C-alpha cells in the first residue's frame, strides 16, 4: 500500500485492511512514540497528569461552528467534552492551593461535531486527542515557553526514529506535495526560543510577501478552491493565509495577541489594550499549519460573565465554574496541542485522519 491508495472511504469500506497494513502500523507506532515523549517532557518539567474527563454538565462553547454531543445522564443533559478548558483552570488552582506548583495536563479526549465542510481541511477530526496543559502564575508568554520546549523535545526524541519514519515519508511524499506540504526527509530539531510574531506583524509579513510574490494568491486559490479573502488586522488569520504563513517558515513559530472576537470567553483581554487578547497559536512550518492554541486565562468572574454574554451564553449552565472562579480563581495560562496534528507533522502525512486508527472524519460513517 502507498499513501496514494488511502482514502476516507477505505475506513468505511474495509477498515481492517487499512489497520493491518504494515505502513499504517508504522504510523500508529510513531503516534505511540510521540505520546510517550510528550509525557516524558511534561512529567520531567513537574506537570501532573490527570485522567481525561469525558462528560459534564457543560463544556467549552468557544469552538467555531462545531456542535457538541449531548448525552442523557440520569435524565439530565450532559455534554461530551469538546475541550477540558474549564477543568484545567479548576485543577490548576486546586493543585496550587494544596501546595503544588500548579502545573497540570490531560491527554484530553475531545469530541466536536465539526461542520462537514471541514472534512476537506486535512486537519479536522470529530474525535481527537488534545494534550491540554495549564500552569499557574504566568501569562501567555510563559505558556509559549512550555509549548516550544515540548515540541523541541518531541523532535529530539523522534530524531532517533528517522529510519522508520523515512518509509512513511517516502510512501506519502507525492500526495503530501499535492496538498501543498513540504516534503519530509529528516527531523529538524528547532532552536528555542521560536520566532514570535504578533498578530499584526504576521499580517504585515503576509501582505509584504504577497506584494513581492503575487503568484502566491493563485497558489492559495488552487490549494483551497476559492479566492483568498481580504487580509486585515481585525480578524483571525484565515486558513488559506495560515497555510501560506506556515509554508514560508522553516521552523515552528508563534503568532500571538489576536484581536478579540474570534476566541472563547476564557482568553484574557489586556487591561491596557482593549480588543486584544493575551493568546497565541503555535504553527508548524512547511504548510502543516496550526499545532497548538493557548492563552492567559480570564480568571475574574465578573469579567468572564461580561465575556460570556458577548457569546450569548446562558449563565445558569456555568454556575459551578463561576462560583469556583469567584472563590478560588487564580492567574493561569495554558494551551492545547493536537496530538494527531503533531503526528501528522512528524510523519509528513497528507491528511490528519491518516494518523489515527478508526478516525472520525466529519460526516463520514465508518467503524
Amino acid at each position: 500500500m502507498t499513501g496514494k491508495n488511502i482514502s476516507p472511504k477505505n475506513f468505511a469500506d474495509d477498515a481492517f485492511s487499512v489497520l493491518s497494513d504494515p505502513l499504517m502500523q508504522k504510523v500508529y507506532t510513531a503516534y505511540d512514540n510521540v505520546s510517550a515523549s510528550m509525557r516524558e517532557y511534561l512529567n520531567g518539567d513537574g506537570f501532573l497528569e490527570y485522567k481525561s474527563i469525558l462528560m459534564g454538565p457543560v463544556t467549552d462553547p468557544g469552538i467555531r461552528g462545531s456542535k457538541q454531543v449531548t448525552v442523557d445522564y440520569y435524565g439530565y443533559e450532559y455534554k461530551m467534552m469538546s475541550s477540558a478548558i474549564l477543568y484545567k483552570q479548576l485543577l490548576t488552582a486546586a493543585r496550587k492551593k494544596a501546595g503544588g506548583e500548579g502545573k497540570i495536563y490531560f491527554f484530553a479526549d475531545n469530541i466536536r461535531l465539526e461542520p462537514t465542510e471541514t472534512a476537506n481541511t486535512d486537519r479536522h477530526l470529530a474525535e481527537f486527542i488534545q494534550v491540554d496543559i495549564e500552569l499557574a502564575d504566568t501569562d501567555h508568554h510563559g505558556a509559549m515557553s512550555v509549548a516550544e520546549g515540548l515540541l523541541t523535545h518531541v523532535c529530539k526524541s523522534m530524531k532517533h526514529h528517522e529510519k522508520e519514519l523515512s518509509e512513511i515519508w517516502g510512501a506519502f511524499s507525492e500526495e503530501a506535495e499535492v496538498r501543498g506540504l513540504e516534503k519530509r526527509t529528516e527531523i529538524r530539531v528547532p532552536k528555542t526560543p521560536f520566532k514570535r510574531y504578533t498578530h499584526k506583524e504576521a499580517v504585515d509579513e503576509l501582505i509584504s510577501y504577497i506584494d513581492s510574490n503575487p503568484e502566491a494568491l493563485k497558489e492559495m486559490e488552487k490549494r483551497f478552491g476559492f479566492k483568498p479573502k481580504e487580509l486585515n488586522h481585525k480578524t483571525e488569520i484565515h486558513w488559506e493565509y495560515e497555510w501560506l504563513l506556515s509554508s514560508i517558515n522553516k521552523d515552528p513559530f508563534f503568532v500571538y495577541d489576536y484581536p478579540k472576537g474570534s476566541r472563547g470567553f476564557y482568553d484574557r483581554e489586556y487591561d491596557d489594550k482593549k480588543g486584544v487578547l493575551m493568546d497565541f497559536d503555535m504553527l508548524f512550518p512547511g504548510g502543516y499549519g496550526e499545532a497548538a492554541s493557548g492563552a492567559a486565562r480570564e480568571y475574574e468572574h465578573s469579567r468572564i460573565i461580561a465575556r460570556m454574554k458577548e457569546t450569548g451564553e446562558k449563565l445558569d449552565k456555568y454556575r459551578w465554574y463561576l462560583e469556583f472562579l469567584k472563590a478560588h480563581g487564580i492567574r493561569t495560562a495554558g494551551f492545547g496541542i493536537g496530538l494527531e496534528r503533531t503526528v501528522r507533522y512528524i510523519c509528513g502525512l497528507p491528511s490528519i485522519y491518516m494518523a489515527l486508527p478508526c478516525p472520525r472524519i466529519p460526516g463520514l460513517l465508518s467503524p
Partner: protein
Amino acid sequence: MPKNFLGKKTDYPVREIMERARKGRKSIYPFSNEKSKFSIYGASMEHTGKKFFTLDNIVITPPQFTPKRLEKAIELIGREPIYHDVDLSSRIGGFRAKMPLVQASMGSPDDWNKVAPFSARACAESGIIAGIGENITTTWGYSSRVNSTQPSFYDRSMAYLENTAEEYGGLVIQQNEEDAYDELWNRIYSDKKFDEYIQKGMVAFEIKGGQGAKAGMGGEKVVDRATALRLKQKYTIYPDPEHVIADSYERHSAPDIFTEEILENRIKKLKNDYPRVKIWFKTGPYRDLGDVIRIAAGAGADNITIDGKEGGTGMSPSVALNDVGIPTISCMKAIASAREKGVTVSMVSSGRMTGGGDMVKSIALGASGIAMGRPFLIASYAYSHAEHFIERELYNYAILKNISSRIAKPDKRSITFVKNMIESIETEAKLLIASVGKYRVSDLSREDLGTGSKELSGLLGIKYIYE
C-alpha cells in the same frame, strides 16, 4: 364601567383589583376569562392606542406633478404606467425579496406552531423573507416531534426552504439563551440538510435583543405539568412542578443581558463564527434605540429589526401591553434619525403593521421593509367555520386557542389564505406607490407623507396637512 357602592359609575379599577385578589399572580396575564382583558397576541388592550400616536395618524399625500411618472412612461414607450409597473423587489438584510414584507420571527405558541409550516410555505412561494422565533426546538423538538400534532423546528424550516424559488427570500432563525443550551445554531450550521441552503446564502441567524410587547422582559408561556417537568432544566418554572401540583405552570425565560460592548462583540463574534449566514439583530421599543442602531450597524449586522410596543406576543403581562415601551411611531423616528446620520444598514420595522399602507409609510420614513406577525396567524385560520368564533368573542386570547383546537388539523387551505393576504398587501402597496408618482420602492421618501398633528409633523419632518 364598574359601579361603586353607591351605584355610581367609577373609573377606579375595582374589577382589576378583585381579579388580583381572586387569582393572584395569574391575574397579571391577559388570558383570564374576564371580559375586561381582551388580547389577541397582545393587541386590543383597552388603553392601547389612546396614549400615543400611531401610523394611523399619518396619511399618504399624492402630488399633482409626477415627473417620475413621465420618466416611467418614456421607459415603457407607448404605454401609460399603472400600479403594476411598480417594482417592489428589495434587498433586505442580505437577501433578495420580491417585496419588502417579512413574516416576523414567531415562536412556539401552540396555535401558531400548528399552522406555521403552511404560512412558511406561502411566504417562500411568494418570495418574501420569513422568521422562525425562539423556543421551538426546546418546546417541540428539533427534527423528531415531541407531540405528533405539532410540527418540529425542522418541519417549519424545510416548509420554507424547500419551497423558495429563484433564490428569493431567506429564513431568519432566532436562538435565545435556552435554545443556546441546545446549541441550535451550531446544530443547524453543521447539519447536512441545511448545508445546501446555507451555501446559497438563504439563512440568517437573528440575535433577539427585545420584543415590542415586553420590552425588558423575558419570554413567558403557560404550560402543563408534563411539559413543565420536561423543561425544568432549561427554564425557570413557577410553581416547581416537582413539588406542587397545579393545573398550569409559568415558564419564564430570562431577558438577555447587553451593554454597548457586549452587543458589539456579540455581533462581531457571530459574523466570525458563522461566516456563511447573515447576522440579524432584533431589538425592541427601548429608550436608547438610537445607540442600539448605531452600535449594531457599526458592528456589521446585516439587518436590524425594530419592534414597536404595539407588536404582538404569545404572552405578556397586561401591564407591559399597556404601560411599557415606546410606540412604533417613536421607533420610526429612531430609524429616520439614523438615516439622517448616514446609517445605511437594512432596518425592518414592526409593531401592529397590517397592510400596504403601513408598508409604504414605514419605508417613506426610512425603513427598508416591514415585518408582521399576527396577520400571518389570523390569515392561516381564515376558515369559514372559524369566523363566528372570532366575531362572537372578538379577540380574546383564549378564543384563538379554542379555534385551533376545534380545527384540529389545519390544512393546505392555510397556504392559500396566507398567499392571498400577501398578494393583497402587495397590490395595495403598488397602488399607493404609483399614486405618489413613483415606481420603485426605494424612491419613497418623507415628501410622500402628511399628518394632521403638528407635533408629529415636527417630530418626523413630514408635512402638516392643514397648512
